[in-house]
């Protein structure tokens, strides 16, 4: 898995590629929590376009990120979900909990 950060004004965009699984979910969690708790970034967008697979530990990282965002009054937005990632969030009944958009433009305009 690879993860890199772009910054646009008060937004951080985390581009993630590969699998968010047991071996890598802690890194996603660490970076997302850092944005909210240390940087106090008002809006963090996760680009999941190149994510092939998310397991339950990956979903847990996203939920922790969402809770951290809410704790500091920020927003966590997801976009570019693959059908498999979409299926996992649907199984977890989390599709309505997250802000999810199809494209980066839509996420930035939200």
């Amino acid at each position, binding site marked *: 898995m690879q993860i890199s950060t772009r910054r646009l004004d008060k937004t951080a965009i985390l581009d993630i590629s590969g699998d968010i*699984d*047991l071996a890598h979910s802690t890194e996603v969690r660490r970076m997302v929590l850092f944005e909210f708790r240390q940087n106090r970034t008002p809006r963090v967008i996760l680009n999941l376009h190149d994510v092939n697979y998310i*397991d339950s530990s990956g*979903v847990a990282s996203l939920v922790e990120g969402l809770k951290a965002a809410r704790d500091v009054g920020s927003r966590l937005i997801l976009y570019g979900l693959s059908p498999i990632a979409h299926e996992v969030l649907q199984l977890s009944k989390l599709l309505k909990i997250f802000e999810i958009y199809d494209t980066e433009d839509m996420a930035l305009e939200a």
Partner: protein
Amino acid sequence: MRLAEEMGFAAEQCRGLTRAVDEALANIIRHAYDGRPGQPIELLCRRLQDRAHGKQRGGLEILIVDHGAAADRKSLCGRSLDDVRPGGLGVHFIKEAVDVMQYTSRARTNQLRLVKYLPATKLGAKTVKGE
């Protein structure tokens, strides 16, 4: 999961079975072996063929065996998804994917048995490919 595909499970069911095995292995690594590398995990898959009440049904049985700490029975029940919080989703993913989930633990040998059945067919009925 190639075997599941060959047996005729739908793509969504194959993804579910792959997810179930992945989650089960992750649970063993995290909890039974406490993250220690190099510990043994046995994975056995076999085709099932049950006959009852004039019908037969095929299925896939997956046995996952480890020799670590036994799982807490409460953790195998899963949790309500109405409670939005991290953790506890793995068991839910497994249960969603299979028809049978059985866990046994004896003498430091833990076994998770998962079974997914194909739709039952009447005995003697011919299956036409594509139907």
